[in-house]
């Protein structure tokens, strides 16, 4: 570590002045880590947080073994988007009460990109419910992560099937492709920007 420098990729470039963050949320196995990895300039990193039954709720622990019930993992990546701005992508289980385990994770976020797997649409309902009721107006966009056997819907059908608030952007992406993942993030940032412009 003593020999590490700011140019070996571990550290953030010294020109960077600001950071921004986006949450990547979605049901189990929808491709959160894949999306983060496709955009990140570092191998995605992982942290774990202790979880208590009080912070999670007994229902969510049903079906988890003891080991999983004591920690919850978050993975994240980093991309230096301009010489002065670095973006962090934090991938967490979709439910708001899980993000609350990470102090300050949702506060100050640009918004959330919600990954949805159309083979298991119903798995996304709880995530979307949580976002709409508890995210205090945090902007979100939906990215449909297509798998080879995914049924295809058009955007309007999905807005209806997922009961999305009017104006919620929906994009398709292959989370393994950097440009696709970046397009999903762009859609979210454009949406957040439009909301800010209306507010100001």
């Amino acid at each position, binding site marked *: 570590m003593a020999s590490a420098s700011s140019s070996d990729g571990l550290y*953030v470039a010294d020109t960077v002045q600001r950071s921004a963050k986006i949450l990547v949320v979605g049901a189990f196995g929808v491709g959160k880590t894949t999306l983060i990895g496709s955009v990140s300039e570092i191998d995605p990193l992982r942290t774990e947080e202790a979880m208590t039954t009080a912070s999670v709720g007994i229902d969510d622990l049903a079906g988890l073994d003891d080991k999983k019930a004591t920690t919850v993992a978050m993975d994240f990546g980093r991309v230096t988007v301009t010489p002065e701005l670095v973006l962090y992508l934090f991938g967490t289980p979709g439910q708001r009460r899980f993000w609350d385990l990470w*102090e*300050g994770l949702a506060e*100050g976020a640009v918004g959330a990109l919600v990954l949805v797997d159309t083979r298991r649409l119903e798995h996304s309902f709880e995530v979307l419910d949580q976002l709409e009721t508890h995210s205090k107006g945090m902007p979100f966009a939906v990215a449909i992560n297509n798998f080879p056997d995914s049924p295809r819907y058009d955007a309007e059908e999905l807005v209806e099937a997922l009961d999305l608030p009017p104006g919620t952007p929906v994009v398709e992406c292959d989370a393994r492709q950097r440009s696709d993942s970046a397009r999903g993030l762009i859609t979210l940032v454009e949406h957040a920007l439009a909301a800010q412009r209306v507010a100001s």
Partner: protein
Amino acid sequence: MPSPGEYRDRPVRSYVVTGGRSAPTRNTVRPETLVTATSPGASLPMSASRTERELLGMCQHLLSLAETAAHLALPVSAVLVVASDLIDSGHLSVRTPAAEPANIDILEELLNGLRKLV
């Protein structure tokens, strides 16, 4: 001194490294907060904890607190508490206080940067 095997015992370890406190003393630190060791680098007191030393050692160049937590295999919540103390004592400095919430200028800068990735 915990043996390496005890590192997996997160709840206990995070209690130990934070001295039992569960929340940072100030609310300006977040997982994405960028920090560096203050140059020229005041030395830590003899009483400094191992985690304080490790964290400061990790921050010889710019890094987010989430990254330091991952590299040190510590919970982010614990690192936020220890980092707050090191900021209060002047050993760590925050690159830029968080903009609240992300403002239009930052969103535009972010958008322009992301468009180059496509």
